[in-house]
């Protein structure tokens, strides 16, 4: 890709100021939209761009917006999912800390499209700086008249509020996020009804990711044709990939989708820290790891799905040969156990059970039958859990069993304890 778009101004020292944002064209797109486009035209434009959500599920954004009923007399809500809890993911934090106005402008455009009069940005509580930057940016936007009553003297009014999360990964799931805003425990809700029909306070609601809103501004600033010219046809537009783990170069890189994972971790990631890569997780901790042999897989939705993994949040975590896979498997099980909301039996009871078994294996107390038991538990959780947390957990754990059974067997068959006992961590 020739020029950075999503990250264009990120490193500029004034990137968070509204004056700088306006000087570089900010809020111009919004003015044009509010004064000359109909909400339906906005939706159609985003549909035509084939923008896919940048949160993790990759649902077509324009299509999601089109599900909101029109002229139903109810209040419509827009939510920005800035809960960013998927391990390996940190792109939204970057966008909020360094380009908050772009997030806001994207939200106002989206709110106009679905005729929402209230929007909430759900920012995870740990992201203190993001919250400060967004809050400051909102204040500036209100002062300039980009928010509040009758924006640009049109009939459209919008209020945006920040709702601070308080440490629950599950609130990144859209219906759990809505529950959290309503003041309940963050547990996912039954679908149907879908949020677009009955979401926040039982009203039509759209929830989108931070990066998705940023893409929206660029679609209108540079055009649908520009957007669709980047990357594969079914997943166009620039994307922010996160690189972390045992790589030389860690950070965020802006690229079109479609490149291979190998290219990503070698050309951009600088290759492994020590020796060879052992496996690479392509899309956040819920995405099954790809072993070294599979690194040629292309980083787009379809190819990763075919490889029994997923695009997720495009958070690439690389493991090199110094890492023991059972340790990673155990840590995955522990993470999801900690974050399980407790609603459904398979996730609530099954993941801690898997965690206990994996702990035992890691500390040298594994038994024959443990792997089979893990397979059964993962199967039960994968097929039967209420929401994607259980599915992701089981899938990721099963991948470690599938690709590295020898490492598990070695630990189980050994009588001595080969690694430090980490069980109290």
């Amino acid at each position, binding site marked *: 890709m020739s020029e950075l778009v999503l990250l264009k101004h990120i490193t500029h020292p004034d990137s968070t100021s509204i004056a700088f944002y306006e000087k570089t064209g900010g809020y111009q797109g919004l003015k044009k939209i509010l004064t000359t486009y109909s909400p339906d035209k906005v939706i159609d434009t985003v549909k035509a761009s084939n923008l896919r959500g940048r949160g993790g599920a990759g649902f077509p954004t324009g299509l999601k917006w089109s599900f909101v009923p029109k002229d139903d007399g109810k209040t419509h809500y827009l939510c920005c999912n800035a809960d960013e809890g998927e391990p390996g993911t940190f792109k939204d934090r970057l966008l909020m800390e360094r380009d908050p106005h772009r997030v806001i402008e994207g939200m106002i455009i989206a709110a106009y499209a679905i005729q929402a009069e209230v929007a909430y940005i759900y920012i995870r509580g740990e992201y203190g700086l993001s919250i400060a930057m967004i809050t400051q940016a909102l204040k500036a936007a209100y002062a300039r008249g980009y928010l509040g009553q009758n924006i640009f003297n049109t009939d459209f009014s919008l209020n945006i509020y920040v709702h601070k999360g308080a440490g629950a990964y599950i609130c990144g799931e859209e219906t759990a996020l809505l529950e959290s805003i309503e003041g309940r425990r963050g547990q996912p809700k039954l679908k149907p009804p879908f949020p677009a029909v009955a979401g926040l306070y039982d009203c039509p609601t759209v929830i989108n990711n931070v990066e998705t809103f940023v893409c929206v501004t660029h679609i209108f600033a540079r055009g649908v044709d520009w957007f669709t010219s980047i990357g594969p046809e079914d997943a166009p537009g620039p994307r922010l990939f996160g690189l972390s783990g045992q790589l030389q170069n860690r950070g965020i890189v802006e690229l079109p989708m479609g490149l291979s994972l190998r290219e990503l971790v070698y050309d951009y990631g600088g290759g492994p820290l020590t020796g060879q890569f052992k496996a690479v997780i392509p899309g956040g901790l819920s995405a099954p790891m790809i072993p070294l042999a599979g690194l040629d897989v292309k980083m787009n939705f379809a190819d990763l799905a075919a490889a029994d993994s997923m695009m997720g949040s495009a958070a690439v975590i690389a493991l090199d040969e110094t890492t023991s896979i059972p340790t990673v498997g155990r840590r995955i099980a522990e993470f999801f156990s900690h974050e399980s909301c407790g609603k459904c039996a398979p996730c609530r009871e099954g993941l801690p059970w898997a965690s206990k078994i994996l702990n035992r294996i890691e500390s040298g107390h594994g038994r024959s039958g443990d792997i089979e038991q893990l397979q059964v538990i993962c199967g039960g959780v994968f097929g*039967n859990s209420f929401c994607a947390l259980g599915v992701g957990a089981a899938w990721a754990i099963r991948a470690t069993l599938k690709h590295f059974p020898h490492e598990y067997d070695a630990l189980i068959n050994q009588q001595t304890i080969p690694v430090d006992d980490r069980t109290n961590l």
Partner: protein
Amino acid sequence: MIIFKINGQEIEVEEGTTILNAARANAVEIPTFCYQDRLSTLASCRMCLIEVEGRPRLEPACATLAAEGMAVLTHSEKVISSREDMLEILLANHPLDCPVCDKSGECELQDTVFEYGKGDSRLVDPKRVFRIDDIQLNNVITFNANRCIQCQRCVRVCEEVVGDVALGTMERGLDSEITGVGNSLKDCSHCGNCIEVCPVGALMSTPYRYKARPWDLDKFETTCGMCGTGCSMTIEAREGKLARVKSQYETGINGELLCAKGRFGFDFIDGGQRITQPMLRKNDVLTPVTWSEALDFIIDKSLNILGKNGHIKGLVSPRQTNETAFIFQKLMREVFQSSDIHASCRFSGLNLQPETTDILKALLSQTYSRQPLGDILQSDCILLLGTNICDENPVSSYLIRQHKRDNHNHLLIASSRPCTLDDIATEKLRLLPGNEAAVLSALLSTQPDELAISEDQQLSDFVIAGKTILEQSASVSLLIGTEFMRGQQAKNCLIWITETVQHLQQQGKQVFMQFLFDRPNQLGQWHMGCLPDLQSYDQKSIPDMFYVVGADPIADCAAGDQLEQAALNSPCLIVQTAFMTASAQQAMVILPTPSYGEEDGTYTNNEARVQKVSAIRPLAANILPSTVIFTQLASALGLDIIPNTAAQILSQIKQEIDGYQTLKEDFIFGPKLNDYGLTTSPPAITEAEIKAPAVDYLALENYTLITGDSLFRSGKLTAQSKNLSGLGHDAYVEMNPGADYDEQQDYEVTITRGNATITAPLKINRAFPDKLLFIPEGQLSTPANKIITAAEYPCVVEVEIKVSSITIKSEQNAQS
């Protein structure tokens, strides 16, 4: 209608039916834990997952609607395997407590594992244990967190149906634990519905703990004897001793719901001082005598009085069965030649004017709706008038809450005391009893500010909003309490109730009206004919004989009430009772009778539905059924009353009492175990129209005392219940003393009226209107020291509040 397949068989159901309900209606079993028909759907336990052909993942049957052409498999390999896995996962942390767990034998987890489980568990790792000892959440609920499978039925029933929101879940994931605040339950009504819905042994009844195994228990289907809701319950006894009370989902208007009184209060039958043999006053001392001596005395006295054309008065308690009341009024009318028959001690207002009985009779036969409560609650507008429903008819209030959630209708509440339904009311008003007529008059009037009510903002707001809602409603249900019957306005209120129903009907609306009685068989007694002929009998004159059945006029009547005076001054007071009472202590003759649960009979509830009351144990040796006493007296006095058994008497009732003709022959084993059906409205009689009079509105200006039932007290009987006595204060005065008084300090209140005075601990309720005081009826003072008078209800009193010198040991104080 939709046609789809379950296991290859075609089934037709209404659109909007879930696969689960469709399956159950067609005898296809699908196991569930978190699903409960009355509650919101969670689909969290994942036990009901079934296979829908063409879909990759299993779907929850409880949350998936049946669709045209769908093919559902409930016992495919995938489904069976999924159930096995889910159960194994649930058993991973569920303790193997069956040998010591109360629920064993009736445990849904046990039953489901037996049916669908693998038969072994491969968990070798330590289970998650919260703690070793169970927690006493309060005096009646014990909680074992280790056994909980997080189905959330308890939390949902408490929030969605009962409305207390006392239970919640703390932490998350495997650490999730059901809790109250600080492990005790604030605002809990102690109804025990959470225990009833818990599928495992996590929530347990403390009084029942370790007492029995379900298979040891004899089960008796019966009807509750606390209030007029008429809940169906199963009293379970072990070797004749009351073990516990349960309620089944399939039976009654209440299903699995009961209130604290119903669920825990029936140990009253083993409390108090039981009368074991007849007694006769000799030389001013009550002396045990034989039945023949006692009855002979009565017969002689009666002959004497009848010979002189004297006056015999009768009073039967609204807790007595229809059969007892029916034969009693036969005895009174046909033997004692008297129709001065009463069926309540507390409704002083009904006896003040001669026309009142006729007005009441007309209302009961012409205006009263004999319909299922569930149907009535579907109306566009429900008006709760003059009823403290959450204390007096708790289960009715649960049903209202549930129906409002499902139907989104308007709920208008005008009552003397605040209640938990206030939260979901469209409009609410605090109303002194007696003002019901004024409010109805205001709601119906076409003039905007008739009655100088505009000074009272709350009242104006309510009337204005209420009028609009009534106008917009195509159907209206009036559910009316009986507090107004205690006071001077009783007759006017009855007139205005009739007027309101007719007025709204003339506007083309569908109108329903029922009373919410706080006694189980008030309506039944009145149907049986136990209403006094006030035109013929001067209520002030002292009767030559006063025959009291089951009631306690000396204690329960307001000071100066005519029935109280009759009991105190009649030369011959006969008291037929199971327990020693104040009236019995003054009686000339005491005749022992069965208590609740010792004889078969029927009650007629608020819906005018006749339901069976069952004996759970045989009578003690020297006790005769009330009806037998009456027939023996009648026989000795020259009249043979043939029907003797409860069944025979019911047959006679069916013949003779208007509206009882269509009752079923006998109860039917099955879902409606003790339901004889609704009575029907008697044919219309044209009566003289009574013009609804203009009425004044009585404002609350001075300290005013009201009384009635509380959450744990139904009259005096419940004071005999050990379980209920352990809940709440023994006596208290509930009021809002103002911001100067705070919950950290203990205060006591002294109430005085004339020479009567009572001092009791203060219970602060900030939702009470200023200057209103409440003492539960059963805890008002002794007969000699009555604050409440018949001449004035509600009563204006003098009040003094000071810091308490007594330390109060009670659950409620400890929590605040």
